């Protein structure tokens, strides 16, 4: 199972860094006592290249990553108490390609996605790091920027399913539809582009096209109306970026299947290379609670921008 518990991964990464530091110290001491190694490829099995097996890779942070690492830390998400389902609660289909039913992200919310699925720092370029810095500082100063979530607009697929709120999945042969409890969110994944053309107008949630690779649904989402916050703190995705989501249903062996979604962020505007995060979603077939943010946002007393500050453009 691949999961993305940022805090535990980060601790694991720190442990790796510690192990690496110890190993380097040992090697350094040994190097002083023995003749210099010949130049050439690093150690390991002959011809294999790279570090010895088990020797962790530790890449130095780039200037952009140093900037991101210097920011005030994000709020930590917490997990809540488990719920017991009623005796007549429906169960997920045993069909690995049938995702239908109710689910929710059941690990703590990641307020700021600082690390990839391996615990490595997100590969920010300087433009991306400065956008994140701007947003985090504005938030901490109590002057958060306008963003889709804050004004009751669709926040994009990543934020939408990362929230620990319920969603339901419906499927037919032409599309998979996610119906979210929050923000009246809809995520349509079109399976056959010939059935319906992409919408003429760009949408907040973008346009998603999916196909099956075995029992994994691979979805590419692009063509968004505007750049989105990938999370609460504003990890950026530009309007030209795209998300590749790999969704599969996994049985944990105890008849408690869960969904796994691995998202690869592809956005040269803000990142030096694609990077991926993973989330887990547990079965939750209960009914939705009402989410009616328009009642608040539309209140003339509050203003259409809800007190948020327009974000400077790059």
């Amino acid at each position: 199972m691949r999961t993305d518990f940022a805090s535990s991964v980060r601790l694991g990464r720190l442990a790796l860094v510690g192990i690496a530091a110890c190993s380097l110290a040992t090697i350094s001491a040994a190097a002083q006592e023995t003749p210099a190694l010949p130049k050439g490829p690093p150690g390991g099995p002959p011809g294999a290249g790279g570090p010895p097996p088990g020797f962790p890779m530790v890449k130095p942070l780039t200037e952009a990553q140093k900037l991101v690492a210097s920011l005030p830390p994000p709020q930590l998400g917490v997990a809540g108490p488990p719920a017991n389902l009623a005796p007549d609660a429906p169960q997920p289909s045993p069909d690995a390609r049938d995702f239908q039913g109710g689910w929710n992200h059941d690990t703590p919310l990641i307020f700021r996605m600082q690390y990839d699925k391996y615990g490595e720092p997100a590969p920010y370029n300087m433009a991306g790091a400065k956008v994140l810095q701007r947003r985090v500082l504005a938030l901490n100063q109590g002057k958060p920027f306008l963003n889709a979530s804050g004004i009751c607009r669709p926040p994009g697929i990543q934020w939408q399913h990362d929230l620990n709120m319920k969603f339901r999945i419906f499927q037919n042969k032409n599309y998979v539809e996610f119906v979210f409890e929050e923000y009246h969110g809809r995520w349509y994944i079109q399976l056959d582009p010939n059935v319906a053309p992409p919408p003429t107008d760009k949408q907040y949630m973008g346009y998603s096209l999916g196909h099956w690779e075995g029992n994994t649904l691979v979805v590419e989402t692009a063509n968004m109306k505007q750049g989105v916050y990938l999370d609460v703190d504003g990890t950026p995705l530009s309007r030209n970026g795209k998300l590749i989501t790999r969704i599969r249903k996994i049985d944990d062996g105890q008849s408690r299947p869960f969904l796994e979604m691995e998202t690869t962020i592809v956005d040269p505007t803000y990142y030096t290379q694609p990077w991926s995060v993973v989330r887990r979603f547990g079965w939750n077939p209960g009914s939705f609670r009402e989410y009616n943010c328009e009642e608040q946002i539309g209140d003339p007393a509050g203003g259409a921008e809800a007190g948020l500050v327009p974000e400077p453009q790059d």
Partner: protein
Amino acid sequence: MVRFIRLGVGAILVGAMLCPGSGGSAQVQSDHPAFEGVWKIVTSTTTLKLPDAVPFTAKGRNEYAANKKMKARGNYDDYDITTSRCSSPGVPRLMLTPMRFKIWARLGYVTFDFEWNRAIRQIDLHATRQPDVMGDDLVPTMTGDSRGHWEGDTLVATTTNLSERTLLDDLLPHSVDMKVTERLRLTDPNTLENRITIDDPAYYTKPWDAVITYKRQPDAIFPEDICLDRIQAHQPAFPTS
């Protein structure tokens, strides 16, 4: 606002974890695929029933008259926050929306998936309500609490706990104690009839009915509809075409 949302998200995380229980089945007997599909109201209207045919109480008539005056003055936010703010029209007004809606009748719920502003309502067909770790709704909501069962081929849904901040249509008021009963049935494979009974003694002297008919439409992925964007562009909350 983001701070508010962050606090809200933090609080709501209390409901994040789940622990599926045993029992249940992959298929639910109450599922009814014949209702599934895309539907659209046959005759677009903003009126559930003409006021002359509605048995107002004095309180109901006075509030209706007041709403008419505010509508004439354009003071929508004083009586109709759906028109002014895109707030959910609630039950039963959602069933009058001029755009399409989709019905999914699966896994013990009938889900109405509206094209208008991506609105949603659910009718729970389970014998027992699935517990929610956040607790039951104490505050009435726009779509209330809808429970349903099948009587032959007719879906009978009863909705209560409805906020008085909605209207039955663009003018008719109701109290928080209203009960809405809907009897939905196919009169032919492509025609869906919804007989709506309003039972609200504070505003109406006796229960009264209205019938709305929908025609089946081709299956579709709905384009993203954002009511607040229309309001911001000084367009009506409900598209007129």
